[in-house]
């Protein structure tokens, strides 16, 4: 008889569900992909329904449902925070308490209600950082590894150190709220005018434009960083414990003015602040990494938590840190907690052994819904779309590779949807990185944004060391490492380029070609690398091989299949709508190829209307 364990994360941000059958990951997905509401924190009822459907079971077959954190411990932290700051903080308290009274303190009832009367299993709870740690260690390829989780906050812990061995993990040390690297980074995200909890990666992308001239100010006033990578914050500079902003007036005074208004012009100050907090973050991650290594003596490290999505810091830790190898959970944020919670029950609570997969147990993080080619064909017929169908994969790949070589932007919808924040080649928009126009076209005509960040490259793993400063065959399948583009691919900037690099408008600077792969090369020659291999990526790998055969280039541009503010597409309908609303040239869904130019004139979707249906992130 099979044992089914459902992991759930919800009611904070990025709710998700993950299902295990006898310890095997059957399915995992974030709720936002189904509700089309970015970072949806509500109970993941659609994700749960999908996971159960993928396993062919209903809620009655679930043996355990595991929630990814302890609500009562978190409630204790909230109460103590408000007590500490009383009489300040009532406004925030007034918003927090009703949701706790109605939902979060009654989670078992809520779960029963959502799953229906059929559910007869048991409800368990794990710690927030235990869930992160489990999500990092259990799917990793290591039999034994040190664990580092870096987050904003869970219950009390804001980061933790532990070790994993065999089928057990232990979380041994932690830093406690309110002292948090994640919170510190989010405070600067807020101050520089980006959305907290989603704009952190933009700040990371902004950093290369600036000089870290505020580091001393940060370390001398706002935060104290110990040699062991622990962080202590001077709370007088922050307002997140009691107020509705991240930073206080004292913070504004220290950095010379109020926070930047969202969507307003980005000045050199924001760039320098970005560079400064990024430098601090990298320093903390490196110090914490060395400390973990000292404590555990282990040669491999696994990581999770929101800060583990900082791929620049990850890249430095791998290159400069003491570990031989690092594995990072691709759904490193709270969504990944659902998977970790389920895995901890299977291995640690129920005591089942674990045999690490030499590749890893995450299955390329392709754990979401897939759609049959026949169903896609039926859907396209129902819309009246014009398409080509290539059941012969060779012909299909040849067609797509040639379209890309002609600088066409292609929507690529294949197989199972990704679990985690990154599109890894199944719900992706892809293009030719050699094209000097690709970056602008993708940003303005497809993503509908004026971005200062280049796109991420996908590289055939066998070529990774030839294009980037990485080791031969080094794995980065989840786009969680940043590495420099090798010198031989870089170009020398002309006088005109140098002049454009001084332009206050970042869109001008990012458009300066710094390598023969301009669409993926940042101003500091770095790139957020995803390696693509045959084992994990199947058809996507074969497409890249074909593109390489056609062009000699082992790299393509990969960005998520969505527009700004929209969750990544999940279904063929959503992909088709996005294709129609944007200026994508082609859409490939399984064996079906659609060209924009060939679509009937009566099929149109108003781009403005489409954009308006998603709020800016």
């Amino acid at each position, binding site marked *: 008889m099979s044992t089914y364990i459902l992991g759930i994360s919800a009611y*904070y941000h990025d709710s998700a569900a993950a299902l295990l059958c006898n310890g095997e990951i059957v399915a995992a997905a974030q709720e936002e992909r189904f509700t089309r509401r970015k970072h949806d924190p509500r109970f993941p009822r659609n994700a749960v329904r999908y996971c159960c459907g993928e396993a062919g079971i209903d809620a009655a077959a679930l043996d355990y449902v595991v929630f990814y954190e302890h609500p009562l411990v978190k409630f204790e932290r909230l109460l103590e925070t408000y007590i500490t700051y009383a009489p300040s903080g009532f406004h925030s308290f007034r918003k927090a308490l*009703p949701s706790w009274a109605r939902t979060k303190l009654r989670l078992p009832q809520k779960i029963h209600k959502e799953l229906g009367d059929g559910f007869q299993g048991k409800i368990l709870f794990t710690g927030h950082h235990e869930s992160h740690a489990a999500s990092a260690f259990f799917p990793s390829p290591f039999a034994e590894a040190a664990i580092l989780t870096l987050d904003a906050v869970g219950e009390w812990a804001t980061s933790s150190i532990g070790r994993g061995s065999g089928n057990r993990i232990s979380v041994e040390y932690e830093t406690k709220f309110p002292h948090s690297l994640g919170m510190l980074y989010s405070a600067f995200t807020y101050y520089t005018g980006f959305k907290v909890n989603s704009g952190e990666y933009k700040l990371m992308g902004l950093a290369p434009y600036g000089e870290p001239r505020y580091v001393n100010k940060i370390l001398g006033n706002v935060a104290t960083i110990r040699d062991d990578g622990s962080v202590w914050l001077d709370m007088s500079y922050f307002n997140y414990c009691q107020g509705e*902003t991240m930073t206080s007036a004292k913070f504004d005074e220290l950095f010379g003015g109020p926070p930047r208004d969202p969507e307003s012009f980005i000045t050199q100050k924001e760039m320098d602040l970005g560079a400064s907090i990024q430098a601090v973050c990298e320093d903390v991650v490196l110090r914490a990494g060395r400390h973990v290594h000292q404590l555990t003596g282990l040669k491999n490290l696994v990581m999770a938590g929101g800060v583990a999505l900082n791929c620049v810091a990850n890249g430095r830790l791998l290159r400069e840190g003491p570990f031989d190898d690092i594995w990072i959970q691709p759904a490193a944020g709270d969504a990944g907690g659902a998977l970790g919670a389920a895995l901890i029950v299977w291995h640690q609570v129920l005591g089942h052994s674990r045999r690490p997969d030499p590749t890893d147990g995450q299955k390329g993080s392709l754990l979401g819904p897939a759609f049959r080619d026949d169903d896609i064909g039926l859907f396209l017929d129902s819309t009246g779309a014009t398409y080509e169908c290539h059941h012969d994969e060779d012909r299909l790949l040849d067609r797509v590779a040639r379209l890309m070589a002609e600088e066409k932007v292609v929507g690529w919808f294949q197989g199972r949807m990704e679990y985690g924040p990154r599109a890894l080649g199944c719900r992706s928009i892809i293009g030719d990185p050699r094209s000097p126009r690709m970056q602008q076209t993708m940003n303005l005509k497809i993503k509908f944004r004026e971005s200062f960040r280049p796109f991420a490259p996908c590289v055939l793993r066998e070529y990774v060391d030839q294009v980037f400063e990485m080791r031969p065959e080094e794995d980065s399948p989840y786009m969680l490492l940043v590495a420099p583009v090798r010198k031989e691919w870089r170009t020398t900037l002309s006088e005109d380029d140098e002049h454009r690099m001084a332009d206050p408008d970042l869109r001008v600077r990012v458009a300066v070609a710094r390598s023969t792969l301009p669409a993926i090369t940042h101003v500091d020659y770095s790139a957020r690398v995803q390696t693509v291999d045959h084992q994990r990526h199947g058809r996507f790998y074969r497409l890249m091989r074909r593109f390489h055969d056609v062009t000699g280039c082992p790299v393509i541009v990969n960005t998520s299949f969505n527009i700004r503010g929209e969750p990544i597409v999940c279904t063929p309908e959503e992909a088709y709508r996005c294709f129609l609303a944007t200026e994508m040239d082609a859409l490939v869904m399984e064996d079906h190829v659609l060209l924009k130019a060939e679509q009937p004139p009566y099929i149109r979707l108003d781009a403005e209307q489409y954009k308006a249906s998603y709020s800016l992130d």
Partner: protein
Amino acid sequence: MITLSAPPRLAHLRAFGLLLSLCYGAVVALLAWMLRAANPVLTWVMVTSVMVAVSVTTAQQLAWLYKRWNSLVRWLSRRATTAISGICFCMCAALPRNEMRFERKPRSADASNWAKTQSTSSIADALSPDPASASKNPRWARTYIRWAPRSGNGWAIVLLPFLGLLSLFGEDEEEPVPVQNYTLF
């Protein structure tokens, strides 16, 4: 609190009219009985019938009243929630506590901020990942009462009735949190 579906469909308006008619008929019948003016049952039947007929045929005109109901419920809900939260907040600030885990003051310059992980089993054993002891459907109030003293927050038990009230008065739709804030809850 009971908020009605918005925007209403015709069936919603008719159901709302029906309910109003029943309540209105009952009030008039009660008055008739108190004043001994007429047979209360007959009065209730007649008044309700007329009201039902009117509300069903003029359902669209009820939309205004329907919307007012939601506004009134929301207004009451907000006031009640604020008042109850205020009481809880005052209690949090005033009641004595044994020890706090929250640390705001700086430590000495060389002290590490890494601390040995505190076992959560003593704090939240009712929710611990132990399948043998995990209940299939634990009662939240009982869990809360067991948790509060063990976490060193025995005083938090006094919040329990207010939490119950808050769940009664809470709005069906939660207030959106500011997008620029990292909510702690």
